């Protein structure tokens, strides 16, 4: 463990330039450039905000702000998981030719996503101001929620990125799971709808549901987030991160040969 941290520290410049490459390289050549990572979720939000009031009978007031607070963290989650899963495969070229701590690749995917998400937060703030909801001091919980999401994602992509090298189906299975999870996460609807229903326990099993609920509590409802469930998710994420790292370390030895 100590060796890993030392190793990562001495390769910190690689982590930095890799994050830069992820953010800038992806949209290089397109007209709007980096802006696409914000325009995209915004357009998605717009579609939901137009369509769903027709489908759901009673939506929340300020529905568009309600949706934006769900969609942006969710976009962060899906981009990191999808990109993270394929990152080892995509970087096959350098993995086969140069030695560097392989953990850098999934970590930089998650970190560049985090930086994008920070900017997305500004969009959320603009929506909060424009809709007249404003801010409350509960916003101090925001770093804790974001941190939990970061650790959760890191744990997941350590596992998926390594497995995807050996079983290329992983990518497609995960796309499917994420699509399904989208409906099992209170993004378009409020978790309160299921409060007294028999499937509420099912939603509570989904860590992203807890995280999105916390974002909503802190930003939209301006109330105390459900700290106990958040801490449970945080603890679970830390355990997942530890297991993920173990799996990654174990599988990384075969990367260059399998690719």
């Amino acid at each position: 463990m100590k060796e890993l941290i030392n190793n990562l520290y001495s390769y910190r410049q690689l982590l930095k330039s890799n994050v830069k490459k992820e953010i800038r390289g992806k949209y290089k050549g397109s007209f709007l450039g980096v802006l696409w990572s914000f325009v995209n979720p915004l357009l998605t939000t717009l579609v939901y905000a137009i369509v769903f009031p027709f489908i759901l009978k009673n939506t929340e007031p300020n529905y568009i702000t309600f949706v934006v607070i769900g969609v942006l963290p969710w976009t962060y989650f899906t981009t990191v998981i999808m990109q993270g899963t394929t990152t080892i495969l995509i970087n096959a070229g350098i993995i086969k030719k140069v030695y560097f701590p392989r953990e850098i690749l999934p970590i930089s995917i998650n970190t560049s996503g985090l930086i994008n998400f920070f900017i997305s937060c500004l969009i959320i703030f603009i929506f909060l101001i424009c809709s007249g909801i404003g801010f409350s001091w509960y916003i101090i919980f925001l770093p804790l929620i974001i941190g939990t999401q970061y650790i959760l994602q890191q744990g997941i992509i350590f596992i998926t990125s390594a497995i995807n090298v050996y079983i290329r189906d992983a990518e497609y299975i995960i796309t499917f799971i994420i699509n399904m999870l989208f409906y099992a996460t209170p993004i378009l609807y409020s978790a309160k709808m299921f409060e007294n229903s028999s499937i509420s326990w099912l939603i509570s099993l989904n860590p992203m549901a807890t995280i999105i609920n916390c974002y909503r509590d802190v930003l939209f409802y301006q109330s105390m987030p459900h700290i106990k469930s958040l801490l449970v998710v945080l603890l679970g994420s830390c355990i997942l991160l530890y297991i993920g790292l173990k799996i990654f370390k174990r599988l990384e030895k075969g990367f260059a040969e399998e690719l």
Partner: protein
Amino acid sequence: MKKKENYAIKVCNVTKVFKLYYDKPNTLKERIVFWKKNKTEVHKVLDNINLEIDKGETVALIGTNGSGKSTLLKLMTKIIYPTEGEIKIDGKLTSLLELGAGFHPDFTGRENIYFNASIFGLTASEIDKRVTQIIEFSELGDFIDSPVRTYSSGMYMRLAFSVAINVDAEILLIDEILAVGDQHFQEKCFNKLQELKDSGKTIVIVSHSLESVKKLCNRAIWINKGKKEMDGKSNHVIEKYLEVCS
């Protein structure tokens, strides 16, 4: 400087086995359907190799194609891991297995210097110090601020080599790259290697250009079919090698 041992690279009883699949199962379906049916052939690339390379030595690995030289280099850089045995490295190691690994075509030459050097484990300030030296060595001039995709293959190689050679590692592993660029640049590379050798770096070269090997290295190791055939003074080993091959 209290270390008793003076090795830079120590290879102990290393065996490397590659599994060759006739039809590699990459998907879940194939893994399940062809479970245990898949024909594999075990190919022993390296067989119980023992080596010790001291600090400051310049060593050439020679041998015919497919003899396992490059695999040995890859094992030393920790890109792949031995099936059996152990490899110990003492010192900062840089490998030039293939040039320009990880260049991003849309970034400029200068940005790629930073990216490529960071793959070798340099920090930003360390790269800052070297950047003029690297650009000078590459002789790219004003092209350094154009995207790499606009480069000719020669320019690409020159940039890649310049980064790698200026990383300042204690141990350099080089795989068949003395054939970079034109005559002028090749000589320049050769001189640079000579200079690195004189400054006490450990260099391991895989090469087929035996003439330059003879000039540059004092020790040569001949690997034949995964086994160490001969180890000794480069002139002597190369002579024997040529005798057998021709």
